[in-house]
């Protein structure tokens, strides 16, 4: 059973291979694909995650903000900050795609 499929600008035959790796194409063939996340993108995505995972750091009442204990405003603050970091990665991806 084989079928023709349009892949990466050319027609290729897709054939399930019963013996070895289905396709010789490996991740290393696309290291600079514009939509791949680079290590710095991953770092940017990790920052808001780490900020809300460090419970012993923010599990405290002081300093308060408008009467709201630190525990609560610290986590609330990271919601919009999470958007900022995601936005940075989004812009980086878009710039790379425009440049490629």
């Amino acid at each position, binding site marked *: 059973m084989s079928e023709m499929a349009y892949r990466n600008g050319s027609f290729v035959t897709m054939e399930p291979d019963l013996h070895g790796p289905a396709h010789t194409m490996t*991740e290393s063939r696309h290291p600079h694909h514009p939509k791949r996340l680079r290590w710095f993108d991953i770092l940017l995505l990790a920052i808001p995650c780490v900020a*809300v995972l460090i419970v012993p750091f923010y599990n405290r009442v002081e300093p308060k903000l408008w009467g709201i204990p630190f*525990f609560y405003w610290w986590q609330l603050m990271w919601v*919009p900050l999470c958007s900022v970091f995601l936005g940075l990665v989004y812009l980086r991806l878009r710039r790379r795609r425009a440049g490629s």
Partner: protein
Amino acid sequence: MHFWTIAVFLVCFVLVGWIGLRAARWQSGDLRELHEWGLGGRRFGRWVTWFLIGGDLYTAYTFIAVPALVFGAGALGFFALPYTVLVYPLVFAILPRLWSVAHRHGYVTAADFVAGRYDSPLLALAVAATGFIATMPYIALQLVGIQVVIAALGLPTGPGWVGEIPLFVAFAVLAAFTYVSGLRAPAMIAIVKDALVYITILALILVLPIKLGGFAAIFAQVPRDHLLLPAVHGGQLGLQSFYVTLALGSAMALMFYPHATTAVLSARGTDTLRWNWVFLPAYSLVLGLIALLGFMAQAADLSRMPDLAPYFQTFGPQFAMPGLLLHFFPQWFAGLGLAAVAIGALVPASIMSIAAANLFTRNLYKAYLRPQCSPHDETQMAKWMSLVVKLGALLFILFLPLQFAIQLQLMGGILILQTLPAIAGGLYTRWFDPRALLMGWLAGMGWGIWALSLTSFQKSVYALSLGSWTIPGYVGIYALLLNLLVAVLATLVLRLVGLAHRRDITQTADYLG
């Protein structure tokens, strides 16, 4: 009975039913095709996707349960916040790969992807069944949200047939528009729902602190042991490790709940999705504010108010949010807010039933029962199935104790996490052998259910002992670690004896987009 509350509520509800039925004609496509009925033709743009995913993930049950949890348990209930912060970086990195490969190969469910990636219908069936089972109680809980609202309106909520009529009506509206319009209906209704939710929450969060004397006064009323998580002492990590693992586990599970997959796959492209993840945290902010409502209900001492006490007796802390609406706002506004919650139940319930129907049709009916069925038969089956799934949820609510649905929903997240190695793992590598993944899945499911049974399915916490340390954590995360361990070891063994296979109909380039 509150006349104006009910009147405003009914107007909103009728409007939404009408929009849902009309939605079939919007961006019209051939609704006899599964990807048209069940994925809206994969054509939803930035704004529709934003409303759809927001309406999908932040359910009515969330609006009821999160303030209820904070009202009852304090700081621990705030885990919903790190949970919804964690989920966006995760989906931003991972889910565009799922969209790309699904788009190239016409996959409608995550189990479709697993079938293609591993050439293993059995593993796909396991993934599909897990998703289906986890979704059912979730739909039931949406109906519970509607039930709480009906009670708040002053309408009867049973027992007896007369008392169930309002719930039946809500159910009929939901079933009709989902059947007729497919995913287009919740997508359009989500816009109305979100407008109502934002208005309600803004009003609550602006008015209540003023009426209650400011945040300082509100937090002063919170019992000390509810204000923070208990401190770590000795080797006992207490609730802190549970808080972290619960947030992380819930975020990872949310990604691969079938209704999340359905909403993600219906987007027009990966750029639409990424743009959405940037702006979706706006909903998390709302969620955080909703969580604070729990403390406000406590500060106002709502549960002791004579007019609200009977409700609290029936629904417990779940009545915190509706109680605030009824007590502090004029009748018509309470109607608007309650409509927001009820419609907030219809949107996810509709998407969940579509997602469950897609799973059943694609990965059981077509894969095993009738492989030769035509695309039109397939879609018809999915439409019927969406009705069956919702009817099941309704019967669930009518005939089984409410506690049962809540416990099953608790288990649902743990089950979904066990499909993570197959789905998320598969998006990055074909290293795992499908049989090894199946073994890991079994181990994770088995251990997870056993660990839950230790607390009679009341709590999702398991206290892991490592030397002199006790680390209470979310059962789902521990089960996932066991699952991964088994999958890795079994893959290594299968490879060593030369039995592992790497059949795969996807290519590396399929995942980038």
